[in-house]
Protein backbone atom coordinates (compact mmCIF):
# COMPACT_ATOMS: atom_id res chain seq x y z
CA UNK A 1 0.00 0.00 0.00
CA UNK A 2 1.30 3.43 -0.84
CA UNK A 3 0.15 6.21 1.40
CA UNK A 4 -1.00 9.52 -0.02
CA UNK A 5 1.79 11.98 0.54
CA UNK A 6 2.21 15.64 -0.35
CA UNK A 7 4.80 16.67 -2.87
CA UNK A 8 8.24 16.85 -1.33
CA UNK A 9 10.34 19.73 -2.62
CA UNK A 10 13.52 17.67 -2.51
CA UNK A 11 16.46 17.12 -4.80
CA UNK A 12 16.12 20.58 -6.18
CA UNK A 13 18.46 20.04 -9.11
CA UNK A 14 16.77 16.89 -10.35
CA UNK A 15 13.30 18.15 -9.64
CA UNK A 16 13.87 21.27 -11.68
CA UNK A 17 15.06 19.19 -14.61
CA UNK A 18 12.16 16.82 -14.32
CA UNK A 19 9.46 19.37 -13.83
CA UNK A 20 8.60 17.49 -10.68
CA UNK A 21 6.96 20.55 -9.22
CA UNK A 22 3.83 19.85 -11.26
CA UNK A 23 3.68 16.43 -9.68
CA UNK A 24 1.93 17.53 -6.50
CA UNK A 25 -0.69 15.12 -5.28
CA UNK A 26 -0.62 13.13 -8.50
CA UNK A 27 -2.10 9.72 -7.87
CA UNK A 28 -2.12 6.51 -9.86
CA UNK A 29 -4.82 6.59 -12.55
CA UNK A 30 -7.86 4.35 -12.13
CA UNK A 31 -7.11 2.37 -15.30
CA UNK A 32 -3.95 0.30 -14.93
CA UNK A 33 -1.18 1.51 -17.19
CA UNK A 34 0.25 -0.97 -19.67
CA UNK A 35 3.69 0.07 -20.90
CA UNK A 36 4.87 -0.74 -24.43
CA UNK A 37 7.18 -3.71 -24.83
CA UNK A 38 10.91 -3.84 -25.61
CA UNK A 39 11.99 -6.05 -28.54
CA UNK A 40 12.68 -8.89 -26.08
CA UNK A 41 9.21 -8.56 -24.57
CA UNK A 42 9.94 -6.67 -21.34
CA UNK A 43 7.55 -3.93 -20.26
CA UNK A 44 9.43 -0.87 -21.51
CA UNK A 45 10.12 1.56 -18.64
CA UNK A 46 13.25 3.03 -20.20
CA UNK A 47 14.02 6.67 -19.64
CA UNK A 48 15.60 9.18 -17.33
CA UNK A 49 13.87 9.63 -13.99
CA UNK A 50 14.17 11.69 -10.85
CA UNK A 51 13.30 10.17 -7.50
CA UNK A 52 10.77 12.08 -5.45
CA UNK A 53 12.09 11.22 -2.04
CA UNK A 54 14.90 12.45 0.10
CA UNK A 55 18.12 10.85 1.09
CA UNK A 56 18.67 13.27 3.92
CA UNK A 57 16.50 11.66 6.56
CA UNK A 58 14.11 9.03 5.30
CA UNK A 59 12.43 8.82 8.71
CA UNK A 60 11.74 12.51 9.10
CA UNK A 61 11.10 14.75 6.15
CA UNK A 62 11.52 17.90 8.16
CA UNK A 63 15.08 17.71 6.92
CA UNK A 64 14.99 17.76 3.17
CA UNK A 65 17.88 17.33 0.82
CA UNK A 66 21.53 18.16 1.04
CA UNK A 67 21.18 19.70 -2.39
CA UNK A 68 18.83 22.34 -1.14
CA UNK A 69 19.64 25.23 1.00
CA UNK A 70 19.50 23.48 4.32
CA UNK A 71 16.35 24.72 5.92
CA UNK A 72 14.18 22.53 8.14
CA UNK A 73 10.48 22.50 7.32
CA UNK A 74 8.49 21.95 10.53
CA UNK A 75 5.34 21.15 8.52
CA UNK A 76 6.99 17.92 7.40
CA UNK A 77 8.15 16.92 10.85
CA UNK A 78 7.45 13.29 11.61
CA UNK A 79 6.57 12.38 8.02
CA UNK A 80 8.49 9.40 6.79
CA UNK A 81 9.21 7.52 3.56
CA UNK A 82 8.85 4.31 5.55
CA UNK A 83 5.33 2.91 5.15
CA UNK A 84 5.89 -0.13 7.34
CA UNK A 85 6.22 -0.29 10.35
CA UNK A 86 3.38 2.21 10.84
CA UNK A 87 5.46 4.52 13.04
CA UNK A 88 7.70 5.24 10.03
CA UNK A 89 10.88 4.33 11.88
CA UNK A 90 13.57 1.83 10.97
CA UNK A 91 13.07 -1.06 13.43
CA UNK A 92 16.63 -1.17 14.77
CA UNK A 93 17.52 -3.77 17.36
CA UNK A 94 18.26 -2.08 20.72
CA UNK A 95 22.07 -2.36 20.40
CA UNK A 96 21.92 -0.89 16.89
CA UNK A 97 19.68 1.98 17.98
CA UNK A 98 22.17 2.76 20.76
CA UNK A 99 25.08 2.65 18.37
CA UNK A 100 23.34 4.91 15.90
CA UNK A 101 22.19 7.54 18.37
CA UNK A 102 25.35 9.66 18.73
CA UNK A 103 26.04 9.53 14.99
CA UNK A 104 22.49 10.60 14.24
CA UNK A 105 22.84 13.51 16.61
CA UNK A 106 26.12 14.69 15.12
CA UNK A 107 25.06 14.36 11.48
CA UNK A 108 25.49 18.07 10.73
CA UNK A 109 29.11 18.10 11.85
CA UNK A 110 30.30 14.52 12.02
CA UNK A 111 33.77 13.41 13.05
CA UNK A 112 35.63 11.76 10.12
CA UNK A 113 34.56 8.23 10.94
CA UNK A 114 30.92 9.23 10.99
CA UNK A 115 30.72 10.89 7.62
CA UNK A 116 27.95 9.64 5.34
CA UNK A 117 29.54 7.01 3.06
CA UNK A 118 27.79 8.58 0.06
CA UNK A 119 29.51 11.89 0.80
CA UNK A 120 32.81 10.05 0.33
CA UNK A 121 31.80 9.12 -3.21
CA UNK A 122 31.27 5.50 -2.36
CA UNK A 123 28.52 3.67 -4.23
CA UNK A 124 25.12 4.28 -2.71
CA UNK A 125 23.88 0.75 -2.11
CA UNK A 126 20.27 -0.22 -2.70
CA UNK A 127 17.73 1.40 -2.46
CA UNK A 128 19.70 4.63 -2.12
CA UNK A 129 20.96 4.14 -5.67
CA UNK A 130 17.49 5.12 -6.89
CA UNK A 131 16.85 7.62 -4.11
CA UNK A 132 19.72 9.92 -4.79
CA UNK A 133 20.02 11.81 -8.04
CA UNK A 134 18.74 11.54 -11.57
CA UNK A 135 19.09 8.06 -13.07
CA UNK A 136 18.43 6.27 -16.32
CA UNK A 137 16.75 2.92 -16.85
CA UNK A 138 18.10 1.09 -19.92
CA UNK A 139 16.70 -2.24 -21.08
CA UNK A 140 19.00 -4.13 -23.44
CA UNK A 141 17.93 -7.74 -24.12
CA UNK A 142 17.68 -9.81 -20.95
CA UNK A 143 18.61 -6.96 -18.62
CA UNK A 144 17.51 -3.86 -16.83
CA UNK A 145 20.48 -1.54 -16.30
CA UNK A 146 20.26 1.56 -14.09
CA UNK A 147 22.80 4.35 -14.53
CA UNK A 148 22.90 6.93 -11.77
CA UNK A 149 24.17 10.41 -12.49
CA UNK A 150 25.81 10.65 -9.07
CA UNK A 151 29.25 9.00 -8.96
CA UNK A 152 28.45 7.34 -12.34
CA UNK A 153 27.32 4.25 -10.42
CA UNK A 154 25.38 1.55 -12.21
CA UNK A 155 23.34 -1.53 -11.42
CA UNK A 156 22.98 -4.48 -13.76
CA UNK A 157 19.78 -6.44 -13.16
CA UNK A 158 19.61 -9.64 -15.21
CA UNK A 159 15.98 -10.67 -15.87
CA UNK A 160 16.96 -14.01 -17.36
CA UNK A 161 16.36 -16.28 -14.38
CA UNK A 162 20.06 -16.58 -13.59
CA UNK A 163 21.04 -17.35 -9.98
CA UNK A 164 22.81 -15.07 -7.49
CA UNK A 165 26.59 -15.17 -7.15
CA UNK A 166 28.17 -17.02 -4.18
CA UNK A 167 27.05 -15.51 -0.89
CA UNK A 168 30.50 -14.65 0.44
CA UNK A 169 31.09 -12.09 -2.33
CA UNK A 170 29.83 -8.75 -1.01
CA UNK A 171 29.27 -5.88 -3.42
CA UNK A 172 28.62 -2.17 -2.95
CA UNK A 173 25.33 -2.25 -4.85
CA UNK A 174 24.66 -5.93 -4.21
CA UNK A 175 23.81 -8.64 -6.70
CA UNK A 176 20.45 -7.95 -8.32
CA UNK A 177 18.26 -10.50 -10.06
CA UNK A 178 14.96 -9.36 -11.50
CA UNK A 179 11.75 -10.77 -12.87
CA UNK A 180 8.65 -9.21 -14.36
CA UNK A 181 5.38 -9.87 -12.55
CA UNK A 182 2.91 -8.42 -15.03
CA UNK A 183 4.18 -4.89 -15.55
CA UNK A 184 6.02 -4.76 -12.23
CA UNK A 185 9.76 -5.34 -12.09
CA UNK A 186 10.58 -7.29 -8.92
CA UNK A 187 14.25 -7.34 -7.97
CA UNK A 188 15.91 -9.48 -5.32
CA UNK A 189 19.12 -7.84 -4.09
CA UNK A 190 21.56 -9.95 -2.10
CA UNK A 191 25.36 -9.94 -1.57
CA UNK A 192 25.20 -6.41 -0.13
CA UNK A 193 28.24 -5.23 1.79
CA UNK A 194 27.84 -3.49 5.15
CA UNK A 195 29.29 -0.12 4.13
CA UNK A 196 26.31 1.89 2.92
CA UNK A 197 23.56 3.90 4.60
CA UNK A 198 20.00 4.54 3.46
CA UNK A 199 20.33 8.25 4.14
CA UNK A 200 22.62 10.73 5.88
CA UNK A 201 21.45 9.70 9.36
CA UNK A 202 23.58 6.62 10.07
CA UNK A 203 20.82 4.31 8.88
CA UNK A 204 23.10 1.33 8.62
CA UNK A 205 22.67 -2.34 7.86
CA UNK A 206 24.84 -5.44 7.95
CA UNK A 207 26.08 -7.63 5.13
CA UNK A 208 23.05 -9.85 5.66
CA UNK A 209 20.80 -7.18 4.19
CA UNK A 210 18.39 -8.43 1.57
CA UNK A 211 16.32 -5.95 -0.42
CA UNK A 212 13.22 -6.79 -2.42
CA UNK A 213 12.25 -4.03 -4.81
CA UNK A 214 9.09 -3.40 -6.81
CA UNK A 215 9.18 -0.97 -9.75
CA UNK A 216 5.58 -0.42 -10.91
CA UNK A 217 4.97 1.95 -13.82
CA UNK A 218 1.62 3.65 -13.15
CA UNK A 219 1.72 6.00 -16.12
CA UNK A 220 4.07 6.77 -18.97
CA UNK A 221 5.95 9.19 -16.79
CA UNK A 222 5.75 7.79 -13.30
CA UNK A 223 7.04 4.68 -11.54
CA UNK A 224 5.98 3.74 -8.04
CA UNK A 225 8.87 2.20 -6.12
CA UNK A 226 8.84 0.11 -3.01
CA UNK A 227 11.69 -1.69 -1.24
CA UNK A 228 11.48 -4.14 1.63
CA UNK A 229 14.63 -4.39 3.76
CA UNK A 230 15.34 -7.55 5.72
CA UNK A 231 18.40 -7.83 7.95
CA UNK A 232 18.12 -10.12 10.96
CA UNK A 233 21.48 -8.91 12.31
CA UNK A 234 20.34 -5.29 12.70
CA UNK A 235 16.52 -4.96 12.53
CA UNK A 236 13.75 -6.55 14.58
CA UNK A 237 11.54 -7.02 11.50
CA UNK A 238 11.46 -6.24 7.75
CA UNK A 239 10.64 -2.64 6.87
CA UNK A 240 9.28 -1.00 3.73
CA UNK A 241 10.35 2.18 2.01
CA UNK A 242 8.23 3.82 -0.74
CA UNK A 243 8.90 6.66 -3.16
CA UNK A 244 8.13 7.37 -6.79
CA UNK A 245 10.08 8.41 -9.85
CA UNK A 246 9.13 11.07 -12.39
CA UNK A 247 10.31 10.95 -15.96
CA UNK A 248 12.59 13.71 -17.18
CA UNK A 249 10.73 14.82 -20.31
CA UNK A 250 13.34 17.23 -21.64
CA UNK A 251 13.82 16.33 -25.34
CA UNK A 252 17.14 14.68 -26.16
CA UNK A 253 18.33 14.63 -22.56
CA UNK A 254 21.26 12.32 -21.74
CA UNK A 255 22.84 11.37 -18.41
CA UNK A 256 26.39 12.70 -18.53
CA UNK A 257 29.49 11.99 -16.52
CA UNK A 258 29.63 13.19 -12.96
CA UNK A 259 32.96 12.20 -11.46
CA UNK A 260 33.17 12.26 -7.68
CA UNK A 261 36.25 10.81 -6.02
CA UNK A 262 38.38 12.56 -8.64
CA UNK A 263 37.51 15.95 -7.17
CA UNK A 264 36.87 15.07 -3.55
CA UNK A 265 39.79 16.58 -1.64
CA UNK A 266 38.81 14.86 1.59
CA UNK A 267 38.83 11.47 -0.08
CA UNK A 268 42.19 12.16 -1.69
CA UNK A 269 43.61 13.08 1.73
CA UNK A 270 42.30 9.82 3.13
CA UNK A 271 43.81 7.88 0.25
CA UNK A 272 47.16 9.55 0.70
CA UNK A 273 47.33 9.21 4.45
CA UNK A 274 50.48 7.55 5.79
CA UNK A 275 50.30 3.84 6.24
CA UNK A 276 47.53 3.15 3.79
Amino acid at each position, binding site marked *: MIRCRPFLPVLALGSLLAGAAVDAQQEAPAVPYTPPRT*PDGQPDIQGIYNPVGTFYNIEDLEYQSLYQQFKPNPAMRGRSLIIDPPDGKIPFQP*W*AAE*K*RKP*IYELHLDPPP*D*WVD*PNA*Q*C*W*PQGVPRHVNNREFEI*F*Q*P*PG*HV*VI*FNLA*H*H*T*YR*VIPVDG*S*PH*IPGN*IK*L*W*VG*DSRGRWEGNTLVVDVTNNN*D*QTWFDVM*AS*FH*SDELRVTEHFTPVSRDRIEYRAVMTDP*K*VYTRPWTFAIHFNRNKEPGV*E*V*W*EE*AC*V*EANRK*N*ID*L*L*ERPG*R
Partner: protein
Amino acid sequence: MILRSVCVLVAVATLAIPSAVVAGQNPQIPRAADGKPDLSGVWQAATTANWNLLPHAAEKDVPAGLGVVEGNEIPYNAAAAAQQRQNFANRAQADPETRCFLPGVPRIMYMPFPFQIFQTPGHIAMAFEYVHAVRRIFLNTPHPEGPIEWWMGDSRGRWEGDTLVVDVVHFTNQTWFDRTGNFHSEGLHVVERYTPIGPNHIHYEATIEDPNVFTRPWKISFPLYRRLEKGIRVLDYECYAFGLERTWYKPTE
Protein backbone atom coordinates in the same frame (compact mmCIF):
# COMPACT_ATOMS: atom_id res chain seq x y z
CA MET B 1 18.12 -1.15 -68.53
CA ILE B 2 19.82 -4.50 -68.50
CA LEU B 3 22.03 -3.32 -65.70
CA ARG B 4 19.04 -2.26 -63.64
CA SER B 5 17.40 -5.68 -64.07
CA VAL B 6 20.55 -7.38 -62.86
CA CYS B 7 20.57 -5.16 -59.82
CA VAL B 8 16.97 -6.05 -59.02
CA LEU B 9 17.76 -9.74 -59.37
CA VAL B 10 20.70 -9.43 -57.03
CA ALA B 11 18.59 -7.59 -54.50
CA VAL B 12 15.88 -10.26 -54.58
CA ALA B 13 18.45 -13.01 -54.24
CA THR B 14 19.99 -11.24 -51.27
CA LEU B 15 16.66 -11.05 -49.50
CA ALA B 16 15.99 -14.71 -50.12
CA ILE B 17 19.07 -16.03 -48.31
CA PRO B 18 19.78 -15.87 -44.56
CA SER B 19 21.47 -12.66 -43.61
CA ALA B 20 24.38 -14.51 -42.04
CA VAL B 21 25.64 -15.70 -45.40
CA VAL B 22 25.24 -12.42 -47.29
CA ALA B 23 28.42 -11.87 -49.26
CA GLY B 24 31.09 -10.24 -47.14
CA GLN B 25 29.49 -10.97 -43.79
CA ASN B 26 31.26 -13.20 -41.34
CA PRO B 27 28.77 -15.97 -40.52
CA GLN B 28 30.47 -16.62 -37.17
CA ILE B 29 29.52 -13.25 -35.71
CA PRO B 30 26.44 -13.21 -33.51
CA ARG B 31 23.95 -10.64 -34.72
CA ALA B 32 21.43 -8.44 -32.98
CA ALA B 33 17.81 -8.23 -34.15
CA ASP B 34 18.71 -5.26 -36.36
CA GLY B 35 21.37 -7.31 -38.20
CA LYS B 36 24.33 -5.48 -36.65
CA PRO B 37 27.04 -7.54 -34.95
CA ASP B 38 25.93 -8.27 -31.38
CA LEU B 39 28.75 -7.09 -29.12
CA SER B 40 26.86 -7.72 -25.91
CA GLY B 41 28.49 -9.82 -23.22
CA VAL B 42 31.39 -9.73 -20.77
CA TRP B 43 34.79 -8.93 -22.32
CA GLN B 44 38.35 -8.35 -21.21
CA ALA B 45 41.66 -7.46 -22.80
CA ALA B 46 44.65 -9.71 -22.04
CA THR B 47 47.45 -7.25 -22.74
CA THR B 48 50.07 -5.74 -20.44
CA ALA B 49 49.30 -2.31 -21.89
CA ASN B 50 48.20 -0.89 -18.53
CA TRP B 51 51.77 -1.37 -17.29
CA ASN B 52 53.34 -0.13 -20.51
CA LEU B 53 51.92 0.44 -23.97
CA LEU B 54 55.33 -0.27 -25.50
CA PRO B 55 57.39 -3.49 -25.56
CA HIS B 56 58.91 -4.14 -22.13
CA ALA B 57 60.75 -6.80 -20.18
CA ALA B 58 59.40 -8.19 -16.92
CA GLU B 59 60.02 -6.50 -13.59
CA LYS B 60 58.75 -7.41 -10.15
CA ASP B 61 54.92 -7.28 -10.34
CA VAL B 62 55.11 -6.26 -14.01
CA PRO B 63 54.55 -8.97 -16.61
CA ALA B 64 56.62 -8.65 -19.79
CA GLY B 65 54.79 -7.61 -22.93
CA LEU B 66 55.24 -7.12 -26.65
CA GLY B 67 53.37 -3.82 -26.61
CA VAL B 68 50.23 -2.68 -28.41
CA VAL B 69 51.51 0.36 -30.34
CA GLU B 70 51.79 0.12 -34.11
CA GLY B 71 55.46 0.66 -35.01
CA ASN B 72 56.46 0.48 -31.31
CA GLU B 73 56.81 4.23 -31.10
CA ILE B 74 54.73 7.01 -29.55
CA PRO B 75 55.41 10.18 -31.57
CA TYR B 76 55.81 12.79 -28.81
CA ASN B 77 56.87 16.31 -29.67
CA ALA B 78 60.04 17.41 -27.89
CA ALA B 79 58.36 19.12 -24.92
CA ALA B 80 55.98 16.22 -24.43
CA ALA B 81 58.81 13.69 -24.59
CA ALA B 82 60.47 15.53 -21.72
CA GLN B 83 57.18 15.54 -19.81
CA GLN B 84 56.81 11.81 -20.35
CA ARG B 85 60.30 11.22 -18.93
CA GLN B 86 59.38 13.30 -15.89
CA ASN B 87 56.10 11.39 -15.50
CA PHE B 88 58.07 8.16 -15.62
CA ALA B 89 60.43 9.34 -12.93
CA ASN B 90 57.49 10.34 -10.68
CA ARG B 91 55.21 7.51 -11.67
CA ALA B 92 54.84 5.96 -8.22
CA GLN B 93 52.91 9.02 -7.05
CA ALA B 94 51.94 10.77 -10.25
CA ASP B 95 50.06 8.03 -12.09
CA PRO B 96 46.37 8.91 -11.69
CA GLU B 97 45.72 5.18 -11.31
CA THR B 98 47.41 5.29 -7.90
CA ARG B 99 44.63 7.63 -6.79
CA CYS B 100 41.92 5.39 -8.20
CA PHE B 101 40.64 8.01 -10.62
CA LEU B 102 38.63 7.18 -13.73
CA PRO B 103 41.29 5.99 -16.19
CA GLY B 104 39.98 7.62 -19.37
CA VAL B 105 39.83 6.17 -22.87
CA PRO B 106 41.47 4.04 -24.19
CA ARG B 107 43.09 3.01 -20.87
CA ILE B 108 39.85 1.66 -19.44
CA MET B 109 39.69 -0.79 -22.37
CA TYR B 110 42.90 -2.54 -21.27
CA MET B 111 42.64 -2.31 -17.50
CA PRO B 112 42.99 -5.91 -16.30
CA PHE B 113 39.33 -6.15 -15.28
CA PRO B 114 36.22 -7.38 -17.12
CA PHE B 115 33.51 -5.15 -18.51
CA GLN B 116 30.07 -5.77 -19.93
CA ILE B 117 28.70 -4.42 -23.19
CA PHE B 118 24.97 -3.79 -23.55
CA GLN B 119 23.60 -3.07 -26.98
CA THR B 120 20.45 -1.66 -28.50
CA PRO B 121 20.16 -0.11 -31.99
CA GLY B 122 20.64 3.46 -30.77
CA HIS B 123 22.79 3.05 -27.71
CA ILE B 124 25.68 0.89 -26.59
CA ALA B 125 26.74 0.97 -22.96
CA MET B 126 29.85 -0.41 -21.29
CA ALA B 127 29.86 -1.12 -17.56
CA PHE B 128 33.32 -1.69 -16.13
CA GLU B 129 34.33 -3.53 -12.98
CA TYR B 130 37.21 -1.12 -12.37
CA VAL B 131 35.95 1.81 -10.24
CA HIS B 132 32.46 1.22 -11.73
CA ALA B 133 33.45 3.26 -14.76
CA VAL B 134 30.75 3.65 -17.39
CA ARG B 135 30.85 4.50 -21.06
CA ARG B 136 27.68 5.50 -22.86
CA ILE B 137 28.05 5.31 -26.64
CA PHE B 138 25.16 7.01 -28.35
CA LEU B 139 24.90 6.11 -32.03
CA ASN B 140 24.54 8.53 -34.91
CA THR B 141 24.30 11.61 -32.72
CA PRO B 142 26.68 14.57 -32.53
CA HIS B 143 29.04 15.33 -29.66
CA PRO B 144 27.67 18.00 -27.33
CA GLU B 145 29.29 21.34 -27.88
CA GLY B 146 32.48 21.88 -25.88
CA PRO B 147 34.59 22.83 -24.20
CA ILE B 148 33.80 19.97 -21.84
CA GLU B 149 36.34 18.03 -19.81
CA TRP B 150 35.12 14.60 -18.84
CA TRP B 151 37.33 11.87 -17.41
CA MET B 152 35.93 9.31 -19.84
CA GLY B 153 35.30 11.74 -22.68
CA ASP B 154 32.19 11.84 -24.85
CA SER B 155 31.68 8.80 -27.09
CA ARG B 156 29.56 8.81 -30.26
CA GLY B 157 29.31 5.70 -32.40
CA ARG B 158 28.34 4.55 -35.86
CA TRP B 159 28.44 1.27 -37.73
CA GLU B 160 30.72 0.94 -40.75
CA GLY B 161 29.73 -2.50 -42.04
CA ASP B 162 30.48 -4.87 -39.20
CA THR B 163 32.75 -2.41 -37.42
CA LEU B 164 31.56 -0.16 -34.62
CA VAL B 165 33.43 3.12 -34.95
CA VAL B 166 33.45 5.33 -31.84
CA ASP B 167 34.64 8.91 -31.87
CA VAL B 168 35.72 10.15 -28.43
CA VAL B 169 36.49 13.78 -27.50
CA HIS B 170 36.04 16.14 -24.52
CA PHE B 171 38.76 14.70 -22.29
CA THR B 172 40.61 16.06 -19.25
CA ASN B 173 44.40 16.32 -19.22
CA GLN B 174 44.39 14.33 -15.98
CA THR B 175 44.59 10.74 -17.24
CA TRP B 176 47.54 8.71 -18.46
CA PHE B 177 47.67 5.82 -20.93
CA ASP B 178 49.72 3.52 -18.70
CA ARG B 179 51.92 3.26 -15.61
CA THR B 180 55.02 4.54 -17.41
CA GLY B 181 53.75 8.09 -17.79
CA ASN B 182 52.50 8.02 -21.36
CA PHE B 183 50.05 10.89 -21.40
CA HIS B 184 47.92 13.33 -23.40
CA SER B 185 46.32 16.75 -23.08
CA GLU B 186 42.67 17.79 -23.04
CA GLY B 187 43.03 17.98 -26.84
CA LEU B 188 42.99 14.18 -27.07
CA HIS B 189 40.85 12.71 -29.83
CA VAL B 190 40.41 8.93 -29.96
CA VAL B 191 38.75 7.00 -32.78
CA GLU B 192 38.05 3.41 -31.81
CA ARG B 193 37.17 0.55 -34.12
CA TYR B 194 35.50 -2.56 -32.71
CA THR B 195 35.48 -5.35 -35.30
CA PRO B 196 34.17 -8.75 -34.25
CA ILE B 197 36.35 -11.48 -35.77
CA GLY B 198 34.42 -14.46 -34.45
CA PRO B 199 31.82 -15.24 -31.80
CA ASN B 200 34.23 -14.64 -28.91
CA HIS B 201 36.77 -12.09 -30.16
CA ILE B 202 36.67 -8.43 -31.06
CA HIS B 203 39.60 -6.75 -32.77
CA TYR B 204 40.02 -3.43 -30.98
CA GLU B 205 41.90 -0.58 -32.57
CA ALA B 206 42.26 3.02 -31.42
CA THR B 207 43.74 5.91 -33.35
CA ILE B 208 45.06 8.54 -30.96
CA GLU B 209 45.68 12.14 -31.89
CA ASP B 210 46.51 15.16 -29.80
CA PRO B 211 48.29 18.02 -31.58
CA ASN B 212 49.46 19.43 -28.24
CA VAL B 213 51.43 16.29 -27.48
CA PHE B 214 52.02 14.15 -30.57
CA THR B 215 53.54 14.96 -33.95
CA ARG B 216 51.16 12.61 -35.77
CA PRO B 217 48.26 10.25 -35.03
CA TRP B 218 49.28 6.81 -33.79
CA LYS B 219 47.52 3.52 -33.27
CA ILE B 220 47.13 0.80 -30.70
CA SER B 221 45.38 -2.53 -31.24
CA PHE B 222 44.71 -5.77 -29.37
CA PRO B 223 41.96 -8.38 -29.13
CA LEU B 224 39.12 -8.27 -26.64
CA TYR B 225 38.24 -11.74 -25.41
CA ARG B 226 34.79 -12.87 -24.36
CA ARG B 227 34.82 -14.16 -20.79
CA LEU B 228 33.35 -17.62 -21.26
CA GLU B 229 33.16 -18.78 -17.65
CA LYS B 230 29.71 -20.06 -16.73
CA GLY B 231 27.76 -17.39 -14.86
CA ILE B 232 30.47 -14.77 -15.47
CA ARG B 233 29.52 -11.42 -14.03
CA VAL B 234 31.16 -8.04 -13.64
CA LEU B 235 31.70 -7.58 -9.90
CA ASP B 236 33.15 -4.45 -8.30
CA TYR B 237 36.57 -2.98 -7.61
CA GLU B 238 36.08 0.18 -5.58
CA CYS B 239 39.75 1.00 -5.53
CA TYR B 240 39.43 4.17 -3.43
CA ALA B 241 37.46 2.51 -0.64
CA PHE B 242 39.98 -0.20 0.25
CA GLY B 243 41.37 0.36 3.70
CA LEU B 244 38.72 2.97 4.51
CA GLU B 245 35.85 0.61 5.27
CA ARG B 246 34.00 1.42 8.46
CA THR B 247 33.39 -1.04 11.23
CA TRP B 248 31.60 1.13 13.78
CA TYR B 249 28.23 -0.39 13.02
CA LYS B 250 29.23 -3.93 13.91
CA PRO B 251 27.55 -5.28 17.03
CA THR B 252 29.71 -4.92 20.13
CA GLU B 253 31.48 -8.25 20.59
